[in-house]
Every structure is written in C-alpha cells, then in structure tokens.
C-alpha cells in the first residue's frame, strides 16, 4: 500500500490548520478534521496494531465505530484512554497514540513469532491445555502476551463526568439522510426532537456518497437541515453514541468532548425513538483477508472524499454488491489503477470509467507480509496490488432495536437481518431498515414519524443518483483453504468455527463463547453475521435457523467514568454527619464510620488508640462522661391509634406505658428474629418517640410506614422521622446529675420527679430540651435532646462545667466497652439472623401477651421451641488470659469430630474490672452458667466459662447512685 494525501479536496479537513501527533514514537502529520486513522493513512502507516492472540500485523479496516483493528492507547495532550478506535478519534496536536498488544511497536512486535504457531493454538486451546496443574500458574504470562490496550494504573481522572437527564418527544439516532429527514418531519409536526450522531459532523453516508436532494448538493442540504433544526430549538448532539436502550424507553447516550473534559452521560426518555443508525459494511472471506492494506470499500471512499486520502495506487476492489462501483470509479478518477472483481456474473452495473471489471470472479487469497502485495482469484489469476478494498454487503445497525427485544427478520434478498415486528415507540428508518436508495430512505423516514402527527415539513426528494444493491450472498464456506479471518479483533478464523461445530458448539451462543467470536471490544460488528452464516453452512441450517446472539448494551465501549458520574470517592456512599462534628474534631476526636454515620471513635487522649479508649471507659465509671448520641433514632408516632400501633410493632406491650415514661423493647421481623431494640418514649396519650439503633433508622422508619399504610390506615397514625432535627447529648456517670444541675434547665432533677426510665421537659438558653433518663452504660444517665442547630453551646457548657468534675468525652469505642460490661447487646453484633427474643432472655411477652404483634406466630414454631437454641451469655476467661477474639467459636467434640456450639459476639478488655469481658451466643447457654468450654480460634484452643451476660454491677445499683 502506498497511500497518500491528495493535493486538493477533503470536505472534513482544514488545510490551514496543520497538526502533529505521535504514533508508536513516530511523528504523524495531519490537518484539523482528520481522525487518527485518516492521518495515519495519509502518512502511509500500514501496520497500526497487532492482533489479540496471534500478534498478526493489522491495518485500518473501516472509517467508523465498527473498526476491529485500529485500536490505540491515547495520552499526551488528551486524557488517557485505552483501546480507542483510531477511526472515530479526532487527531489533535500533541496527542500520543500507541498501538495495542505490540512491543515495542506495531511494526516491530517481538511477539510476532506467535503467528507461526497459530495452528497449535486454535480456539479453546487455553481451556484444554492449561488445566494442569492450575490455570493460575499460566495466567499472568498468557495475559501479558494476549490482549489489547493497557490501563495506566497511575492515571488520575481530570474530573467527574456530567450526567444529564433529558426528555423529548422524539429521539433520532443517526444524522444520516434518514435521521435528518425524520428529525425534520418530526419538527414539522411540532414535536421536540433530539438528534444524536456518533460522528463529529452530521450527514452520515451523505458525507462521501454521491447524492443530490431537492436539487441541491447533499452537503448543502445537510447544512440547511441542521441549521433549521437548531433554529427550531431542537437538541443536536454530535460525537455522541446511543449505546443502549433500556426499559421504558430509556436511552443511554455517551457524548465525547474535544476539550479534554470527561465524556457526558445522557439519560434520555423520549416518547418515540427513531433508529436511523445506518449499516456496516462486511468483509469477504478469502485467505489472509486480515492483511494491512485490506480495507472496507466504503471506508476508502470516505477517506478519499472527507480527508483527501487516496488509500493506494494499484487497487483491487472485490465486491458482492453494487455499492463498491461508486468506490472503484472515484478511486480511478483520483488517479489510482483500479481493478474491480465482482462475484456476480450477471446483473452488475456497468464498469466505471477507467476501471477494469472481472465478473463472476472472487478472491481466494491475498499475499504480503506486513502489507498486502497482491491477490489471487478463483481462476488462478494473480494481480499485484498495494491495496485491496472489499465489500461483502451491508449489515443494518439494528443493535438498539435488538436490545429493545425487537425480533429480527431474515431477508434473503438483502442477505441481512432486518427489523421484524415493530416494537412499541421505536421506529427504524434508512439503511438500518434495509433501505438502499435515497428515495427509499426518505419514504421510510416519513413512515417512521407518521404515527406521531401531521407534519408541515415537506418530504425531501432525491434528485441525484440513486444507490442500488443487487447483493449476492458470499459467506465464508466450510473447507476453505488457508486462514480466512472472520473476527479480526479476536482472531477467529473459519477453521475455529469449524472446530466449534466439530465439538458440537453449534448453538450461536455457544459458538460465541467457545471461539470468542464477537466478544471483543467491537462486539463483532463486522464478524457476527459471516460467523453465524458459516455455522449455518457447516451444520446444514439456514442463517435464521442459527439466529443471532442476544443484543446487549453497550453498542460501543463507554468509559466507566460516564456511569460513575460524581459518585466517586466520598460521594460513592456519603456518610451522615453529626451536627457537632467540627466541635469534636477541635477536641481531638478520631472519626470512624459506624452504620453510615461518621462518629468519634475516641478523643485521642493518647497516641495509642487502644489506650485512649481504655482511659475514656475507665474515667466514665469514675465521675461523669459526655457522649454525643445524636445519631440515635427519634421517630415520632402520633395519632389516635398510636398506642395500638406501637403495641403491634413491638414485641413488648407498650400501650400500658404511662405518659412521660420510657420502656426498652424489641422489634421483631415477621419470622420472629430480633430486628431492632431501643427505648420507646411516651410523650402523651397519642404520641410516642421510637428510639431505634443509629444504623437502623431508615429501615425502622420504612417498616413503621409499611404497617401504617398497609394495616392501620393513614388516619390512624402519623409518622415523623425527627432523627436529624435534634441532637442528643448523653451525660452518664455517678456525677451526671451534679453536672446537669449546673445547666439550669428549669426542671426538677430529683429522682422522685425524674426516676430512671422517665422523661422531663425543660429549656436551655430559651430552647426546649427533652431529658430522658435512660442508660446504655449502666450508670445513672441523662439523654438531653435539643434542636440540632442549638446543640453547640449546650455541649460547650457541659464540657466547661464538667472540668471541675473531671468529666471525660467518650467516643463510641469506650461506650461499646461500657455496654459490654453490662451485658447490653447491639443488634446485628450480639445477634444474628436467627436470634429470637427469648434467646436473649426476654421471654415474658412470648409467654404472656394476648394481643397481636409482628413476628408473633414465628415464636411458637418447632424451630423457635428447639431446646438447643443459641442463647446470649457472658464469657469469662481464666485469670491472665487476653480477651477472646470476636468470632471465635465455642466448640464441643462428639463422634471424634469438632462441632461449633456458638461463638463470641463482643469482646473487650474492661479497664474498670481489670479483666476481659465477652458476650456470646452459645447453645443452651442460659442454663449452663458456670460451665467451662473450649474456644477455638484459628486452630488455637482456649478456655472460657459461661456466665450471665452482665459482668458489672449486676444488681443495677449504679443506675440510682
């Protein structure tokens, strides 16, 4: 191949703006408007990559999204992007392109020797060969030798991708003649139109095929139509791929930008979709049909007319249809010596001027090493050639129609699958629907939008030459000589398909997975149909009997950044934050995420976290501790049936609670398993506050709403989640009351007025506060709830007044130690997905309750009554032993085997007791206090004695101290 840039012409390029970029280290010259591929062709770069498996030299095949060969890794002046199609990527000054799967370069690839062993590594070679002893021993080397582009692990995204939701009446996919006509007709019907096209400039085939519309050159008509649509306020998105169609008419678009911004993802919900995505030219089967210098005929015409690139000097054009005649004529006119080889004996168009036509002949092989140097015909004739162009017919781009579960209909006349029965809200027009001439295309566009309303826009008329088809099928034949490529990108040949058939992988889905046909980044846009037609030939079936594989998004690769949008880093799963976060930070807090909340783990009193935590837990028992409990759920249940409602939702009877009092209880799931625990506050007759676990607030809220709406009715209760409205500051310890007295809350803190499990109302600095005397530490405790935005002065006051009492700020880790000392559980930590309330020692309601509640019936099953259920216990270790590992199993031995009899759920070193404390779920544990069992962890055995869960102040005297 000796390709070159012509001195004049090229509708897409701007010769006044030369650009330079690098490919495999060499400088390439081009003009603004070039793609990387057109600039490489203009510079006569034949080898642009190496094939996936055999490292065969490969050249540019096409001029669009279907490109199987010309993939490059991009960098330099443009954002890094691996496996980019050179045919769709604009050439830009300073960009650095590197060929894929080639070291050091596509031209001099050191793994090229692999091709000589090709017959020893057919399809499925890896599956069959590297089974013993272990695939993973071979995998790294094989992966290094096979594959495509390389991801730069150090690459940092220049920003996050925009994601835009968009609605319109009509989405037109493809701005070729069909799409432009449909958009114009829809606009004329008063509809809002969005027009997308994968190319940088609109027009589709009109950009390089001869056409005249309404008496004007096609380029003029395209420009006028676009201007008209833009003036009508319609959205026109160039460089944008409609990659997927999803349920309920959602279409995903990925828009590329030339200014270095990340791509933009569009989610479009049109009422109607017009698919006018055109058609893709297929190769013809002959030996070595993958050599560099063998191109799609239509692509050669596009490079000639758009980029003024003449792809060769001595060109053989091989075809099975009429579309290549215009190509042959144009290349001859541009100065090339052109031979046209037509598989058809009869019914061909006349040979174009200066083109020698051989009818009824086909290519059987091409020769050449790093580029094609000649072809041999089926009659033995050999022609020298520096470029071979092929047209094996056109495959309509019906991928989106297929994704929308549209059924395809085989057309023998077109040798292609066309859209079959219509799909709701989707119309297909133009070459995608099998139209060939412009007149057919426009008529189809009119039909596509006819159902949408009466249009005022006139139907465009084709006044120039009209394309014809006349295709004769030329599928790959079984038993052909030589290596005939079906799938260029995944190195699948006729022989591989034959092998698959021999081994009975005859279903098209099996064929795909066994040979990897159509599984590469191009998704078999040029190869799927020839591959399944070959399988049909081998197995004596028709093409529609073999059928196609399932169409799935994306149509072309979409950067993951587009799907991620702004949901990266911290925004991937945003944490909930305390109103006092900054205050805690200023006080040295070390934050951690707990159940979605960012909370102080401890306040960093010592460099060593463990020591800080132990110190907080020890000092909390000595005088007074301050803890930010704002995350605690505060869901209000209000209404005439509020009492009946909480009775139903809780395991414990709650309707007997007196206003101003609190009660601890469980919520169960319908299967009886403990779902959440917490304190219920009764504010007045018809108003309760559900205080649920911090991490369960959303789930509890949803559960309350579900029973409200599905059982009690909307007028019976009203539910308000006030969790973030209020901050809750907890004051705990023997001196907690003393500290509270300094606040001047205007209420009596006398134990007679505010006993344990009661609430009181007061004010602080003019704001209402609610005091709940509940305890998760086992010490006298007060939870003060105040408007979240007024919490800061109150916290500051507590800390300042606390100094005299040696008050200590405690984080969640210290609180965990304090509650474990008391045997207080954390649902989901000290319980699992099988724990029933009586396993935790709370059997009263199960035994006594007469009224209905969630999960009730499940407490009386055989399973619930099983004698050897795991029950909550404390676990004490021998003196001097370290704390038990959480998750360690209690074991027992029988029949010479080791069995689990439960596990450790919480375990800490208690600084107050000076020994470890632990909780666990152990079989029949409640009846085995005093028994010593073996605990196994990572193969090591230790001892623990089963005790009551509470290890500290079992009489509960400190609550009142």
């Amino acid at each position: 191949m000796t390709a070159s840039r012509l001195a004049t012409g090229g509708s897409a390029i701007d010769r006044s703006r030369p650009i330079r970029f690098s490919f495999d280290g060499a400088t390439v010259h081009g003009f603004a408007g070039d793609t990387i591929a057109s600039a490489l062709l203009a510079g006569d770069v034949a080898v642009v990559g190496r094939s996936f498996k055999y490292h065969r030299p490969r050249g540019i095949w096409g001029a669009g999204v279907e490109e199987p060969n010309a993939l490059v890794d991009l960098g330099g002046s443009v954002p890094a992007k691996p496996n980019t199609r050179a045919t769709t990527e604009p050439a830009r000054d300073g960009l650095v392109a590197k060929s894929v799967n080639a070291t050091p370069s596509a031209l001099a690839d050191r793994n090229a020797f692999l091709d000589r062993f090709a017959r020893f590594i057919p399809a499925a070679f890896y599956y069959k060969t590297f089974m013993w002893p272990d695939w993973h021993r071979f995998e790294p080397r094989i992966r290094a030798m096979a594959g495509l582009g390389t991801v730069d692990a150090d690459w940092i995204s220049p920003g996050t991708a925009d994601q835009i939701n968009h609605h319109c009446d009509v989405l037109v996919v493809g701005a070729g003649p069909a799409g432009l006509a449909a958009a114009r007709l829809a606009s004329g019907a008063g509809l809002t139109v969005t027009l997308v096209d994968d190319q940088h400039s609109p027009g589709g085939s009109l950009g390089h095929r001869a056409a005249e519309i309404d008496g004007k050159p096609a380029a003029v008509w395209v420009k006028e139509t676009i201007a008209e649509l833009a003036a009508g306020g319609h959205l026109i998105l160039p460089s944008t791929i409609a990659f997927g169609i999803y349920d309920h008419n959602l279409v995903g678009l990925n828009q590329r930008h030339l200014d270095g911004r990340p791509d933009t993802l569009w989610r479009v919900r049109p009422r109607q979709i017009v698919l006018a995505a055109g058609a893709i030219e297929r190769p013809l089967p002959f030996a070595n049909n993958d050599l560099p210098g063998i191109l799609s005929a239509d692509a050669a015409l596009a490079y000639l007319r758009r980029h003024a690139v003449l792809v060769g000097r001595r060109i053989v054009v091989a075809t099975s249809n009429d579309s290549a005649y215009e190509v042959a004529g144009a290349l001859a006119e541009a100065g090339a010596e052109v031979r046209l080889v037509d598989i058809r004996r009869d019914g061909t168009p006349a040979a174009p001027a200066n083109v020698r036509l051989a009818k009824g002949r086909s290519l059987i092989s091409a020769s050449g090493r790093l580029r094609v140097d000649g072809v041999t015909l089926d009659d033995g004739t050999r022609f020298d050639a520096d470029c071979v162009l092929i047209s094996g017919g056109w495959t309509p781009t019906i991928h989106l129609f297929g994704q929308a579960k549209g059924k395809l209909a085989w057309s023998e006349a077109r040798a292609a699958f066309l859209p079959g029965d219509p799909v709701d809200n989707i119309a297909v027009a133009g070459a995608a629907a099998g139209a060939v001439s412009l007149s057919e295309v426009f008529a189809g566009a009119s039909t596509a939008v006819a159902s949408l309303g009466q249009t005022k826009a006139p139907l465009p008329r084709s006044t120039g030459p009209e394309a014809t088809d006349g295709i004769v099928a030329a599928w790959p034949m079984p038993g052909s000589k030589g290596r005939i490529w079906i799938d260029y990108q995944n190195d699948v040949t006729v022989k591989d398909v034959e092998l698959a058939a021999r081994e009975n992988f005859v279903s098209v889905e099996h064929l795909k997975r066994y040979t990897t046909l159509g599984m590469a980044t191009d998704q078999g846009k040029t190869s799927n149909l020839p591959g399944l037609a070959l399988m049909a030939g081998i197995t004596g079936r028709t093409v529609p009997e073999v059928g196609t594989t399932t169409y799935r998004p994306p149509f072309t690769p979409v950067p993951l950044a587009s799907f991620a949008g702004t949901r990266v880093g911290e925004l991937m799963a945003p944490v909930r934050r305390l109103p006092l976060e900054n205050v805690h930070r200023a006080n040295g807090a070390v934050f951690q995420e707990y159940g979605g909340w960012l909370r102080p783990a401890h306040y960093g009193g010592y460099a060593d976290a463990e020591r800080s935590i132990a110190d907080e837990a020890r000092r909390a028992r000595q005088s007074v501790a301050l803890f930010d409990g704002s995350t605690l759920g505060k869901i209000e249940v209000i209404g005439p049936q509020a009492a009946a409602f909480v009775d139903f939702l809780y395991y414990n009877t709650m309707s007997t609670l007196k206003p101003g009092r609190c009660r601890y209880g469980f919520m169960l799931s319908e299967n009886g398993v403990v779902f959440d625990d917490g304190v219920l506050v009764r504010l007045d007759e018809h108003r309760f506050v559900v205080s649920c676990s911090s991490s369960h607030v959303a789930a509890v809220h949803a559960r309350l709403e579900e029973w409200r709406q599905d059982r009690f009715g909307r007028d019976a209760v009203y539910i308000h989640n006030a969790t973030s409205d209020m901050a809750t500051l907890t004051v705990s310890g023997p001196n907690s009351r003393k500290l509270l007295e300094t606040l001047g809350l205007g209420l009596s803190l006398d134990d007679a007025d505010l006993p344990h499990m009661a609430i009181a109302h007061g004010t602080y600095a003019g704001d209402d506060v609610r005091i709940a005397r509940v305890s998760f530490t086992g010490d006298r405790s007060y939870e003060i709830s105040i408007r979240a935005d007024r919490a800061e002065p109150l916290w500051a006051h507590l800390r300042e007044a606390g100094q005299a009492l040696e008050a200590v700020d405690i984080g969640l880790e210290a609180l965990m130690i304090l509650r474990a000392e008391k045997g207080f559980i954390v649902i989901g930590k000290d319980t699992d997905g099988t724990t029933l309330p009586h396993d935790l020692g709370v059997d009263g309601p199960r035994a006594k309750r007469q009224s209905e509640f969630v999960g009730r019936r499940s407490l009386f099953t055989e399973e619930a009554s099983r004698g050897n259920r795991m029950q909550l216990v404390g676990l004490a270790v021998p003196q001097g032993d370290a704390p038990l590992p959480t998750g360690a199993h209690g074991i027992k031995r029988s029949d010479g085997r080791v069995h689990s009899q439960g596990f450790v759920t919480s375990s800490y070193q208690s600084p107050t007791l000076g020994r470890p404390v632990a909780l666990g779920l152990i079989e029949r544990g409640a009846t085995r206090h005093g028994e010593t069992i073996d605990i196994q962890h990572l193969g090591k055995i230790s001892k623990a004695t089963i005790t009551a869960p509470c290890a500290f102040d079992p009489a509960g005297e400190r609550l009142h101290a």
Partner: protein
Amino acid sequence: MQLFPCPFCGPRDETEFHYGGDAGNIRPDGADVPIDRWAEYLYLRGNPKGTAREIWVHMICGEFFVMGRDTITHKVLSSAALDGEHAA
C-alpha cells in the same frame, strides 16, 4: 431503567423504589394460625410469569402502593395507593 408511577409523586426512576412483596398476601393474625398458613404467608410467593400485583415503596416520599405490572414485558398496568386495613 423502568419508570414507576408513585401515586403521590408521579413517574419516577425505578432506582428510587423498593419492592415490598406480593400484593394480596393477607397476614393471618393470631398465635394459633395453622403453621402451614403462616409459612405460606412468610415464604410462599407466586413468582408469576406475566401479570403480577406487587407492593412497592417509593423511598423518596415513603408511599407504599400496589402496582400491577407484567413481569415479561415490564409494562406497568396499574398503580394505586394503599388504603390501610389489610389492603389486598
């Protein structure tokens, strides 16, 4: 992505909704409900091919509602708010 009609908010993306179970799965009350009936309520689901009536919740506004839809075509057939009292 499907569009579900929340009776309160109108059509919204399916990612805003959670599935809440089969509609018409009436809860049998009582500690003495036959165990088979209780197991059926807890675990047995129709998993129909075609027309289904399901409870969904719109997590944004908290509305629980009954939606009729086709499990094959994903067409939404109906959508109605629950009215309490063992909505079927």
